[in-house]
């Protein structure tokens, strides 16, 4: 059969979309197509998973004679159902980026210099194996730390296993910079340390607290589809979308209502809304009595009386009081509460703006308390708990006393200790510890899929700190900010050249697993980091080698995914695993719909088996670490103002700031755009060229300031200005933006790379040079919005 591109598109987009294109995708078909030039050419559509962000969209890549030329959505993938965001097509400029590293390199000169020399893979792996073997003996395996980003699929587990076999407790994930506030808030209220999924398609009302719903909150394409569906897919039923945000974002612009709020006070607003829901009896009494714990005043098993959430909220969060905290009028609070209650099913959700604060975990708990009050958890149109694919468990590790000794050591970043009781990682705290050699000196630092010398608050500290680590290895495909200071770079493939599974971020509720696969042969002498870790372990021999009985990462993935095959449910079923794997390769996605609502036993994984207004987990964890200390003293040490039962319930803690208001009168808001691919998009010209469409800015960074404030300060549009905080200053162009609050300056992330490709390097400024490092001690999350700044003409 001959098929023209025009016919193909016709087939793929008319009528039964999913089935027809699905069939084509499965065949991964090859056809000789008559085109207008380059005749004849061989065309293929290869399915894979995008990685321009962690959204996990399924894509079909059109290749012509082995070259990738276009990226469309894969209709079979339920996250994006055949659609893509602008970053997907820009991936062509990542694959063919002229500044990619072409093979492993070793630094022969000083750190950060141009003294790079090529090295063979065999030599490089031998070098790493020897260094790691030495460190393992002296000073010990705990001295090796592995920093990772939002790793995909089995890579997280592979790194964990590598470290466990080696004996290091120090897998430092970057989650404390991004999403741990939500995760920990959920752990405390419903017992799942995960972000939530939401049933947007059946939702009537959205209260979005600082969530970049249409720009940078994952998975964005799923959320855009949900937004569109809420508006127009249901005749005569158009949801209302309320964006509570410090800045007039694209989401705020597209919302039905923008509620400008003082930064860091989202929890108070949520509790003010809760006050009205309770005072006016608008809450779901049945849900609250059946599925929540700690709403009414209660007595514990020891006969101790506790105040309930109802009494506390009625006492503390009258709308007039909340208005004085948030700047949102009491009338608005009352109206939003009534609308929210009357438009159910609806959800309150949040994001980085509300949560990555010194009071972030409590803010998140307060937002979730609204869902508990209206019964919008585990019901259609509500918040859901994502199901995970049924992986085959990892095999046990071989016994090893050296590893056991290392793993018994405290974590380098203080996570899980009295310093950060609920934290799993405290990424932003590394520099001070590296500089001080506390709690112990690091002997080696591995950096994978993250860029600490660009992405950390007070990023300047990392430049000094990294020099204290004797051996730094990067796996980046680019000579980025951090890799530039490594001793050795073992470049990964670009994501369009590698095999990797990619479980979706919580979103649809039911389990979905995508499979990323090479759409073109690797362009350079790069290697999959999963393979490289296995090769290093094997080169080390002994217990390390024994821990990795697989020839390559593909085997690891197949082994883990054999559980999906054995599960005998979901979109791919086969009598033999090899057939399951073939199907998975051709479709790139396995899913197990639909979501079963009302699974209360699974969803509320708490001591009470209910949503906990009073978090028993929080109480128990703090009590365990408290020792003999008095509660008041212990809470104060953690920076918690509240006392008594209130400290364990959703409540408002005043946020902390760095910089005195008299000297630094503005809050600083750093934000992400749709065109921002998690800091990796800066070297893709298509994204640079459309970066700040809303302010007509491209190829540069800028600061948005309220026009009236600017006039008062004598600042005009496009003036050069300094933004100065207690830790530094950066020079930017001013944009007079009516969507800026008078008390807040806004700077987008993306620019200001010191190293990276030709289009990214030395372009604009990175706000992380003025954002001070502040954390929530309870959870270890970075407080991105805690730095005060001033602005003046340059």
């Amino acid at each position, binding site marked *: 059969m001959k098929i023209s591109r025009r016919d193909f598109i016709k087939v793929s987009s008319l009528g039964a979309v999913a089935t027809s294109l699905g069939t084509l995708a499965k065949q991964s078909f090859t056809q000789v197509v008559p085109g207008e030039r380059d005749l004849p050419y061989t065309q293929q559509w290869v399915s894979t998973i995008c990685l321009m962000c962690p959204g996990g969209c399924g894509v079909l890549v059109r290749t012509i004679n082995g070259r990738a030329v276009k990226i469309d*959505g894969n209709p079979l993938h339920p996250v994006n159902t055949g659609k893509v965001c602008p970053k997907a097509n820009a991936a062509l400029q990542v694959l063919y980026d002229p500044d990619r590293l072409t093979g492993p390199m070793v630094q022969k000169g000083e750190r950060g210099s141009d003294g790079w020399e090529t090295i063979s893979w065999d030599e490089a792996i031998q070098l790493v194996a020897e260094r790691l073997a030495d460190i393992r003996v002296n000073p010990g395996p705990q001295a090796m730390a592995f920093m990772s980003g939002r790793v995909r699929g089995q890579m997280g587990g592979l790194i964990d296993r590598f470290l466990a076999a080696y004996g290091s407790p120090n897998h430092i994930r970057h989650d404390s910079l991004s999403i741990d506030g939500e995760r920990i808030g959920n752990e405390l209220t419903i017992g799942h340390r995960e972000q939530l999924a939401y049933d947007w398609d059946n939702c009537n009302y959205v209260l979005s607290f600082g969530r970049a719903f249409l720009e940078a909150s994952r998975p964005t394409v799923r959320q855009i589809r949900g937004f569109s569906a809420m508006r127009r897919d249901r005749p005569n039923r158009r949801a209302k979308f309320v964006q509570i945000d410090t800045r007039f974002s694209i989401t705020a612009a*597209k919302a039905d209502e923008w509620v400008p709020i003082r930064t860091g006070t989202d929890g108070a607003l949520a509790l003010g809304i809760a006050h009205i829901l309770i005072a006016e009896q608008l809450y779901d009494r049945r849900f609250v009595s059946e599925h929540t714990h700690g709403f009414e005043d209660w007595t514990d098993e020891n006969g101790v009386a506790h105040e309930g959430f109802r009494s506390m909220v009625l006492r503390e969060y009258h709308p007039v009081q909340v208005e004085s905290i948030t700047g949102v009028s009491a009338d608005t609070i009352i109206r939003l509460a009534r609308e929210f209650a009357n438009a159910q099913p609806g959800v309150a959700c949040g994001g980085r703006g509300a949560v990555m604060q010194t009071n972030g975990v409590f803010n998140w708990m307060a937002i979730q308390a609204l869902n508990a009050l209206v019964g919008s958890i585990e019901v259609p149109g509500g918040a859901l708990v994502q199901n995970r694919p049924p992986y085959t468990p990892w095999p046990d590790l071989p016994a090893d006393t050296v590893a056991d000794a290392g793993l018994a050591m405290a974590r380098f970043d203080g996570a899980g200790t009295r310093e950060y009781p609920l934290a799993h990682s405290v990424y932003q705290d590394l520099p001070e510890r590296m500089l001080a050699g506390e709690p112990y000196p690091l002997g080696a630092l591995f950096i994978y899929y993250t860029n600490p010398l660009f992405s950390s608050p007070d990023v300047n500290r990392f430049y000094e700190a990294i020099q204290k680590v004797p051996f730094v290895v990067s796996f980046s495909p680019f000579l980025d900010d951090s890799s530039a200071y490594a001793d050795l770079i073992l470049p990964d493939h670009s994501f369009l050249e590698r095999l990797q599974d990619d479980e979706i971020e919580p979103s649809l509720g039911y389990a979905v697993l995508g499979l990323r696969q090479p759409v073109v042969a690797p362009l350079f002498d790069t290697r999959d980091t999963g393979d490289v870790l296995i090769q290093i372990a094997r080169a080390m021999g002994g217990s390390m080698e024994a821990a990795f009985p697989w020839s390559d990462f593909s085997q690891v993935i197949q082994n883990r995914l054999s559980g999906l095959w054995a599960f005998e449910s979901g979109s791919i079923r086969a009598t033999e695993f090899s057939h399951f794997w073939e199907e998975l390769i051709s479709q790139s996605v396995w899913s197990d719909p639909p979501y079963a609502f009302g699974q209360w036993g699974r969803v509320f994984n708490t001591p009470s088996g209910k949503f906990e207004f009073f978090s028993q987990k929080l109480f128990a964890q703090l009590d365990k670490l408290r020792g003999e200390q008095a509660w008041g003293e212990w809470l104060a040490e953690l920076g918690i103002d509240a006392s008594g039962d209130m400290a364990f319930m959703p409540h408002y803690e005043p946020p902390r700031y760095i910089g005195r208001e008299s000297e630094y009168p503005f809050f600083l808001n750093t934000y992400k755009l749709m065109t921002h691919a998690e800091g990796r998009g800066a070297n893709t010209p*298509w994204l640079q060229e459309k970066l700040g469409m809303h302010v007509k800015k*491209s190829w540069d960074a800028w600061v948005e300031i309220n026009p009236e404030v600017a006039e008062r300060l004598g600042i005009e549009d496009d003036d050069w200005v300094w933004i100065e905080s207690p830790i530094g200053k950066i020079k930017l162009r001013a944009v007079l933006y009516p*969507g800026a609050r008078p008390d807040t300056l806004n700077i987008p992330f993306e620019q200001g790379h010191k190293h990276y490709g030709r289009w990214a390097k030395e372009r604009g400024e990175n706000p992380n040079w003025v954002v001070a490092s502040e954390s929530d001690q309870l959870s270890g999350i970075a407080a991105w919005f805690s730095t005060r700044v001033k602005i003046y003409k340059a």
Partner: protein
Amino acid sequence: MPHWGMVIDLDRCVACQACSAACRAENNVSFAGPEETALGRAIYWQEVLAEVDGEYPNVRGTFIPRPCMHCENPPCVRVCPVGATYQNEEGLVLQRYERCIGCRYCMVACPYAVRYFNWRAPEWAEGMERYQNPDVPIRPKGVVEKCTFCTHRLPVPACNQACPGNARFFGDLEDPDSVVSQLARSPRAFRLLEDLGTEPKVYYLREGA
């Protein structure tokens, strides 16, 4: 013979610019770079126009994806002195690059600013020429180019295929039962600068209930 038209629902559109990116990839539109972009020479056959105005806190954002309107009565065709710009039998307004003399009359005549002049020969950074689409010709320096509704891959323009908000619809306006015909009769439907009499074949659906 179909008569192609497009409908863009602004209530569904979220100004993500997926349409712009897909268009550039599909139609071999390279990037302009910082200097040329500052001179207004970045080419977008499908651009998302944005305006944020008002006074805090009463601020409004307006975002309009703007492809070529493929006017039924196209002013650009009328002014072209050499017949480079023409309307085909399917109602598409197209450009014959080999005929274009670069006089740019059409750019002045077009009220929607959808036409772009190639001030320079298109450039691809080393290796990036590999993602060129063989189905779409590369335009030389000195000619005008514009959106073709992806004539080489009808009936689904690349912008529509990408759109994550499902905001874009495409089809035959002559067919009264087609989705675009039905949507074009919606009370929310309007066209840009309708009073000019250009009879655009791109319809927008107003935001709001």
